[in-house]
């Protein structure tokens, strides 16, 4: 793998480039601004993590890239470029050509992600509709892929129905399906959230192995900091629909710049060193995303908030080599302003 410095200086455009993305959900109470001014890149063969609390918009971001949003969602600004295609303007037919070919996805809940009345075999053959080859060849490829994701006895198990597999096995099957189409970018929406802890580790290891072996890019959405630290090259921290900080995993985890990232890391039970009986929490609640608002989104819960946080939206401040954060506190001394 190339170093972070080398990567940030690469002249080739990133595989996925999201710039200033704004997305609203229409609701009876008004428009919910679910994504606000979101910008991030996923480079070829790189794993990009997206972390945040529930409701921070990280899954919405994944679905926006896939074009699988609910009917009441509307992109109001920004751009999503993937592999030379403008995903905001692409026709439904052209999008379908990309999905299941250059782009594929694994979902949060493996228990319901597979069709209960069709065999694994027929589902795995059907999703290769963009690929050439006879059904026999597709079946062979499916069996090979099942073997690779660690389904024992895949030759005969492929004829079984989803309910005959455990949750962990089903997620392996979902991963096999998503990789079977040889995607350039795999979008993983909390693939381990519905699984218990030991399985979670297994799945993360599996994904990491396959990623290093095959070399696809990943947009990895998770609220589990440990999984992100282990699997990702870069990470974007989302809060209430905004990316508050992003950069190389090593930099962010060692030197978090944004107060929210710091609070998030402080709350991760895996990182707590001292003995304690109470887990730390971030006080306050995620603000309502209804209507327009000015100022820093995190100011209500931020221990360091000052007057500027109310008046002005923080811009991106570049720190170190790859790290970018949106916080007014960074607007002096060592910081090179954007």
């Amino acid at each position, binding site marked *: 793998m190339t170093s972070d410095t080398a990567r940030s200086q690469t002249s080739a455009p990133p595989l996925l480039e999201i710039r200033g993305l704004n997305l609203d959900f229409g609701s009876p109470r008004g428009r919910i601004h679910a994504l606000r001014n979101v910008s991030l890149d996923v480079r070829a063969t790189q794993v990009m993590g997206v972390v945040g609390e529930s409701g921070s918009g990280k899954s919405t971001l994944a679905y926006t890239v896939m074009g*699988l949003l609910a009917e009441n969602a509307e992109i109001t600004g920004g751009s999503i470029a993937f592999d030379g295609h403008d995903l905001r303007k692409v026709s439904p037919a052209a999008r379908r050509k990309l*999905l299941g070919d250059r782009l594929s996805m694994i*979902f949060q809940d493996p228990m319901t992600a*597979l*069709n209960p009345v069709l065999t694994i075999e027929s*589902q795995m053959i059907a*999703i290769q509709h963009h690929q050439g080859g006879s059904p026999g060849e597709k079946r062979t490829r499916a069996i090979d892929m099942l073997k690779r994701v660690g389904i024992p006895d895949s030759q005969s198990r492929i004829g079984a129905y989803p309910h005959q597999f455990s949750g962990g096995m089903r997620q392996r099957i979902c991963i096999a399906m998503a990789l079977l189409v040889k995607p350039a970018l795999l979008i993983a929406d909390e693939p381990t959230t519905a699984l218990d802890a030991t399985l979670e580790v297994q799945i993360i290891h599996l994904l990491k192995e396959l990623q290093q072996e095959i070399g696809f890019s990943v947009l990895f959405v998770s609220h589990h900091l440990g999984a992100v630290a282990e699997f990702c090259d870069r990470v974007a921290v989302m809060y209430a629909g905004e990316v508050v900080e992003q950069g190389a995993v090593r930099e962010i985890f060692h030197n978090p710049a944004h107060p929210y990232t710091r609070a998030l890391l402080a709350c991760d039970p895996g990182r707590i060193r001292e003995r304690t009986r109470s887990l730390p929490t971030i006080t306050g609640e995620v603000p309502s995303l209804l209507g327009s608002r000015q100022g820093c989104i995190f100011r209500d819960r931020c221990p360091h908030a000052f007057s500027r946080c109310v008046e002005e939206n923080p811009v991106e401040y570049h720190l170190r080599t790859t790290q970018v954060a949106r916080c007014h506190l960074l607007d002096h001394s060592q910081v090179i302003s954007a």
Partner: protein
Amino acid sequence: MLLYLCKRLVLAVTISVTAVTLLFLMIHAVPGDIASILLGPRATPEMKAQLYQQMGLDKPLVVQLATFFGGLLHGDLGFDVFSQRPVADIVLEQLPYTLELILASILWAAAIAIPLGCYSAVRRNSAMDHIVGVMAVSTIAIPSFVMAVYALLIFAVSLRWLPAIGAGEGFADELIHLLLPSFAVGVGWVGYIARLLRASMLETLGENHIRTVRAFGVSEWRVITRYALPLAILPTVTILGVGIAWLLSAAVFVEVVFARPGIGALIVQAVNSRNYPIVMGTVLVTTFLIVIATTVSDLVNAALDPRIREEL
């Protein structure tokens, strides 16, 4: 599976036994003399006595019941004194006509309702969806015999496109004769199935596995027909089994209107002539038919849904 079939059999037997016992009790509770009703006021006491003996009515109630159930075990539903033939023969002779009418009407209903239901679900809240919704409620509400008489009036009497009465002879002719009656029976179900399918289709389209196949760029048409319909159709199949009772009721009227032979025509005729053995036989056969139909629909459901298959 075996346990399930046993349960079904027990259910069928219990219901039939209860039905027959109730009818027996009611025959005896009827005010007046059955023989005089059957033979008319001019019957001589000897004729009455003979009829009583033939029908077994001279024996105590318990013996009558026992004889009847004993016969039932050998497939004997009793004896019709009017035509001097076994009741089983008469009923089974008419059964195929009713079955083909019911099957044809299910085909009609399915052929119209499945596309309508899918369309309504996919284009939710469109003008067409609202029209289908109103149509659904209307076709459920309008009684089948009114539908049948109007179908007869329009297509057979006024337009003269289709034959008005009878069951026809030869395969093609029978099919043509089946068109209008089965439409009249089936149309009441179009709305019902379309409505049911719309609801289950909407539910299915919101499920996660549909999102999965969409994420693989599968076309909407294939998503609906190949991935959603096999699941969304399941409640409809269940209802089809239960709804055989409803279809049988509709068939009674439609057979009378189109002067078709069949179970419905038979029971109406038997009721008019107070021919109790035939009435009893028909009730028994139809009750059994309904239990069989629900069993068949359960089995079809099991064939379509591997999860149910394992439970049986």
